[in-house]
């Protein structure tokens, strides 16, 4: 935590985090390389899956939610990679460190930006997925947005923190998915369960998995907020 009083931090944190968030968006929309790559990657996984299991219409409905979330997790573990390696490569991390802001603003800004990118990619892929796997996405779009939001937030919080951890490691491109995927087991299980409920013949919103997702988000947002400073120190 910074030496400033909590009140001062509370005042400066949101604008500082917003500034970081906008900076990330600006950087990304100059090239859009991260978004393009992620969308194509998710599409490839969806297609490869149907090759490998050759599901019937009924099976596609059953396996769809699991496949969808696996694709999102893989996409997340690749997409979150550059969150900090980019800063190290261009040595902008030292400018960020020196900025007169609370370090957690960097975390929250980056989590928000990653959340935005991954959500964007997910919603772009959903209609395609619905058509290819014969799943009616549109009637449950409201509850689905909630499940996707809570799950994606969990992926982005853990992924952003882990990206800061692995940025200085050897083999970091391999290491991030390796740390992230088992860690996200609760998110995967709960999100798949909730999504299966929505895609069932009679759609239902299951609350227990939503509670697990929300608990995951709250616990790790708090943990990342308290511990993040350790990850970017020199």
């Amino acid at each position, binding site marked *: 935590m910074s030496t400033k009083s909590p009140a001062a931090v509370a005042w400066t944190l949101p604008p500082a985090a917003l500034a970081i968030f906008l900076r990330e968006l600006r950087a990304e929309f100059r090239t859009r390389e991260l978004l393009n790559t992620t969308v194509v990657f998710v599409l490839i996984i969806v297609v490869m899956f149907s090759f490998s299991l050759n599901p019937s219409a009924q099976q596609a409905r059953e396996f769809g939610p699991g496949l969808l979330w696996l694709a999102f997790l893989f996409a997340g573990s690749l997409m979150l990679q550059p969150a900090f390696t980019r800063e190290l490569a261009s040595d902008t991390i030292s400018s960020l460190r020196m900025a007169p802001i609370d370090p957690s603003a960097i975390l929250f800004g980056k989590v928000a930006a990653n959340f935005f990118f991954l959500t964007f990619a997910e919603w772009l892929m959903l209609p395609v997925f619905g058509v290819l796997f014969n799943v009616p996405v549109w009637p449950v779009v409201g509850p689905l947005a909630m499940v996707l939001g809570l799950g994606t937030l969990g992926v982005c919080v*853990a992924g952003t*923190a*882990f990206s800061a*951890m*692995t940025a*200085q*490691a*050897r*083999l*970091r491109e391999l*290491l991030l998915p*390796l*740390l992230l995927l*088992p*860690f996200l*087991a*609760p998110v995967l*299980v*709960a999100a798949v*369960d909730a999504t299966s409920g929505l895609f069932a013949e009679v759609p239902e919103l299951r609350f*227990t*998995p939503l509670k*697990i997702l929300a*608990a*995951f988000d709250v*616990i*790790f947002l708090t*943990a990342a907020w308290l*511990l993040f400073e*350790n*990850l970017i*120190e020199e």
Partner: protein
Amino acid sequence: MRGFGNVAGAGVVAALLGVAGYAVFFVAPQEVSMGDIQRIFYVHVASAWTSFVAFFLVFLANIAYLWRRQLHWDWLAVSAAEVGVAFCSVVLVTGPLWAKPVWGIWWTWDARLTSTFVLWLLYVSYLLLRSLLPDPARRATISAVFGIFTFLDVPLVYMSIRWFRTQHPQPVIAGGEGSGLDAVMWQVFLVMWTALLALMARLVWQRYRLESLRHQVDELSFGLRAG
């Protein structure tokens, strides 16, 4: 003096393990429905509990490191993590050995099996992360944060995976109505658990000393190069 302490310590652990092994085969009564194969329970469950203790030790050492910034907390963390993974591996190996004759299958994606497997994966990835961070101080800090994240993740893993239909026997110890362990079985189990805890403490201590010696070697060779 240190040599004598080592031998004595190892002797105590070996004696405890011998007593526990004898108790498992000759003192514990035969289980009614499963027969002799149930005796694997003493090693299986006691190893599981021992690995939980080791992982809790990792968590405490992680917090202590972030708080005090003394490298010896990091040595304790890595030692306990390695030993915890070893005990967790014993659980994962003895489980299928027990399951095959009783359930007829080696493995099933049941709640407790799956979550133990994820637990094992999490601490293996903790060790992998450490091995790929070259600088000792950075390694200690980053892995301490990851260790705390991991420990917080464990209850969520267990809760979320509980939805899978469970095939594993319900908790026999403190499981609720109708569950319960024969008094002699309990005693044998506690003897085994004590022996395994002693073994764990012994291994962690040895591993800790190794880490501390490594650190001394690093310092000396750094001093030589600098001089």
